């Protein structure tokens, strides 16, 4: 009998030892049991929330990603130097949040909201969670106001509206960032706040963007969120969410905001790194299953808000880099299927001198048309189709088909139109200039001008028009409407200008 009781006690002891867990009251604290590659395994922290910020001795921060039965998988947001097994970790009770508000304008910050520009610290009186739900369907309004990029090829054929998400996609060195930067420059004096998010870029590239913005006085209304190539994958992963939180603060206070994500391919790679290190199962191209979801929930946060919600808007220009022009790879099609259209840049066009190198056939804007102003809509309705038909016809006629007169006319007009859409970097055009140029080329009033002379001719004419007929250009810019009488007047002025050139 006694013996039996004795074995009962040892069994009990064995059982207790087996089921012993590192707990001893450390609900909000834990201990590092493994670290490497920026991934931490922490025991304890039983109360930690999913997505909570964890503080580690020595001033480091990590993000709780996997809450497993006996341990927590976390990703390190700072560098991993001097971390070792046994270090203490504490839950902070905060989901990652960053300082937001007017004091960020003109600043360069990292994804945790710390300044990178050597300026004074950001007070952070107002914080915002970097993850936030997208505006609900009934909090939205129709995208009906244009956001001009100042690039004629875009504003006429692929117009962007406030609250739209328009993808910029193309191979490296095709001018993707240039378009985004031009769009930011063109917001000067238009009461639009811009946020530029650099994800996994090399520092030199980010720097040159900042210099360009400064040189054109665009930093006054711009915030730059920067995670460079050397930073940890988690930080790169957080950057676009941080940028969006900063932008949302302005949007919800009723302002119009433009955000550029440069670029989401690197963001996808950063997320893949994290997922693989956390041993989450992988799918296509080794990307994790929820790779679509991380981009969809990011980009769905861009919206045009209803009057009730303050009427602000967040317009997004995400950038995706393709390899060898393959827009049907996994990440590119994912993002194309999220955005409201895409601007497709092609290296062949770029090299043959058509800049911006927009492939009009594959570029589309799903909502922009309803956001164009009356004048632009009137003159640009046909531009896209005319160009598509011109290109198809040009290809077909290469093979020696007999060309009728109608076809010859289509070809000539198409060539001049293509020429007139070429535009230099950092040279945004005014709305009225674009309208006038388009009217002239679309009505085929330039058939007596050689294709290579189209641009100098148009520039000269526009200068002349502003000088001699300011009442017309001013009214166009102000009222944004264009009537048939205006077209007649332009034709008259054009004839005069052509005469004066001959003389």
């Amino acid at each position, binding site marked *: 009998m006694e013996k039996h009781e004795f074995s009962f006690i040892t069994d009990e002891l064995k059982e207790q030892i087996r089921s012993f867990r590192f707990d001893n009251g450390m609900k909000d604290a834990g201990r590092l049991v493994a670290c490497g590659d920026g991934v931490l395994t922490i025991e304890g922290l*039983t*109360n*930690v*929330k*999913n*997505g*909570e910020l964890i503080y580690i001795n020595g001033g480091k921060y990590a993000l709780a990603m*996997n*809450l*497993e*039965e006996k341990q927590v998988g976390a990703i390190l947001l700072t560098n991993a130097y001097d971390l070792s097994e046994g270090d203490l970790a504490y839950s902070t009770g905060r*989901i990652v949040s960053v300082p937001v508000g007017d004091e960020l304008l003109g600043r360069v910050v990292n994804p945790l909201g710390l300044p990178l520009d050597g300026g004074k610290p950001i007070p952070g009186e107002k914080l915002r969670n970097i*993850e936030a*739900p*997208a505006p*609900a*369907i*009934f909090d*939205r*309004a*129709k*995208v009906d106001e244009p956001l001009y990029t100042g690039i004629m090829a875009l504003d006429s054929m692929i117009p962007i509206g406030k609250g739209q998400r328009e993808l910029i996609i193309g191979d490296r060195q095709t001018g993707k960032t240039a378009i985004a930067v031009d769009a930011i420059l063109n917001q000067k004096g238009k009461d639009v706040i811009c946020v530029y998010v650099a994800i996994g870029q090399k520092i030199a590239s980010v720097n040159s963007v900042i210099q360009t913005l400064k040189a054109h006085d665009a930093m006054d209304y711009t915030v730059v969120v920067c995670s460079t190539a050397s930073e940890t994958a988690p930080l790169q992963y957080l950057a676009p969410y941080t940028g969006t939180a900063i932008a949302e603060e302005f949007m919800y206070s009723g302002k119009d905001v433009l955000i550029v994500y440069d670029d989401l391919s690197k963001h996808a790679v950063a997320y893949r790194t994290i997922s693989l290190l956390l041993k989450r*199962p*992988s*799918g*296509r*191209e080794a990307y*994790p*299953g*929820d790779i*679509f*979801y991380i981009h969809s929930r990011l980009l*769905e*946060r861009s*919206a045009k808000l209803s009057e009730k919600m303050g009427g602000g808007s967040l317009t997004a220009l995400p950038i995706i880099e393709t390899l060898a022009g393959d827009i*049907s790879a*996994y990440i590119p*099609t994912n993002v194309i*299927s*999220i955005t409201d*259209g*895409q601007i497709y840049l092609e290296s062949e066009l770029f090299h043959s001198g058509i800049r911006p190198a927009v492939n009009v*056939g*594959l570029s589309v804007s*799903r*909502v922009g*048309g*309803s956001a164009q102003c009356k004048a632009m*809509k009137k003159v640009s*309705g*046909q531009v896209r*189709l005319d160009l*598509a*038909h011109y290109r*198809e016809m040009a290809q077909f006629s290469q*093979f*020696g088909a007999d060309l009728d007169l*109608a*076809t010859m006319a*289509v070809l000539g007009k198409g060539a001049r139109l293509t020429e007139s859409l070429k535009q230099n970097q950092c040279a945004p055009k005014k709305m009225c200039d674009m309208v006038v140029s388009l009217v002239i080329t679309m009505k085929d009033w330039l058939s007596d001008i050689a294709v290579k002379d189209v641009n100098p001719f148009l520039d000269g004419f526009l200068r002349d028009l502003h000088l001699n007929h300011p009442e017309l250009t001013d009214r166009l810019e102000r009222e944004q409407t264009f009537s048939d009488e205006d077209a007649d007047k332009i034709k008259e002025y054009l004839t005069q200008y052509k005469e004066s050139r001959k003389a």
Partner: protein
Amino acid sequence: MKKQYIGKIIQIIGSIVDVKFDNHLPNQNELLHVLDGDRMVDVEVLAHRPGGVCRCIALEPTEGLSRGLQVETTGTSITVPVGEQVVGRVVNALGKPVDGKGEMTGEYHSIYREPPSLIEQSPATEIFETGIKVIDLLTPYAKGGKIGLFGGAGVGKTVLIQELISSIATKHNGRSVFIGVGERSREGYEMIEEMTQSGVLQNTSLVFGQMNESPGARMRAAFTGLTMAEYFRDVNRQDVLLFIDNIFRYVQAGSEISALLGRMPSAVGYQPTLSNELGQLEERITSTKQGSITSIQAIYVPADDLTDPAPATIFSHLDATTVLSRKVVEQGIYPAVDPLESSSRILEPHIVGELHYNTAKRAVETLQRYKELQDIIAILGMDELNAEDKLLVYRARKLQRFFSQPFAVASVYTGFEGKYVPLEKTIESVNAILDGKCDDIPESKFYFIGDLSDLEEYKG
């Protein structure tokens, strides 16, 4: 009131939550509530694990949840409102109203049920006109049939589905159900606006599980809308129009969940259960002797690859497939229907009639021949073709352009008024082009017209 049991969260990875129950294990597909202070998060049981653990999928974001939180059982699966109360209403993936028009107190049904049996189903054999030339001629849709609109990103699926809603749903007398699965919230907003203005909304129920929602919610949205449509069909014995934009997102949500569950990935990283999951949904979208469901489903084609497992599996469930192609988009032809890839099960002489059948056959043959000749033209040039083939090429190109059509819903982008073309006019016009009655009209005139009577040059 069923007895409630309480469990505890023991693990959270992404949207997957493990809950341990000590005495009673809830059923598979049962809805559970996680109690997180004053917030309640819905999760659904997916599987049972050893040790009294339920593996669950969260239907809402899991950020902010922690281990140890209490979870209560509900004793039922997800139930959604059905019947007249949902007409003219907008609900989310879980059947909760989001339009601010108040709670629904009527009948609720579980979103899970078996498809109608073999003897209950009735096949579709009657054509219904859409007014879209290329569709009516080459891929005629059937009343009570299942129609798929396939297309890669940005080739115009949603615009086509919106056009179909505006041309069919406005004339349809029965009920319509629109399900938005994993698509853009902006489109959801515009759809509601459009339906309110055209008056379609008062006969329509809308369900949205858009792309900003968790994969669990996106996947359930399809079942929620389908349950409503089934009720109209079975109980109210009505003919129902069901629009789903987009079925691919249902598969995609399933694959996200599968990866999070740690299931072994199948071809191209899809879930191993792809065809079962799809069968469970698609087999319920069907017409019975009581009433019909005519479904129009948009299917996103990832990476423009029709052999991708998701679209390839969906193909076999459909009666008519309209394939939109990027090549056609590049030519500036909208709707960008690829006439050689699209097909319809009812394009048979005994269903559509000899004239329609023969016209369609001729049109396809001409386009196919042109496609074959394109290689020769690219290498040797047009001059090397014989006179007959040259004529064929010019007629085929006119036909391609004739198949473009201005849409009412796209008039803001194109600046053209929408045009509805009756089927007879389409057949007549196509025959005229193929018979050479338009040989002297330049091909650029054929862009974005209705039937041939829109051409001044055409004498008839």
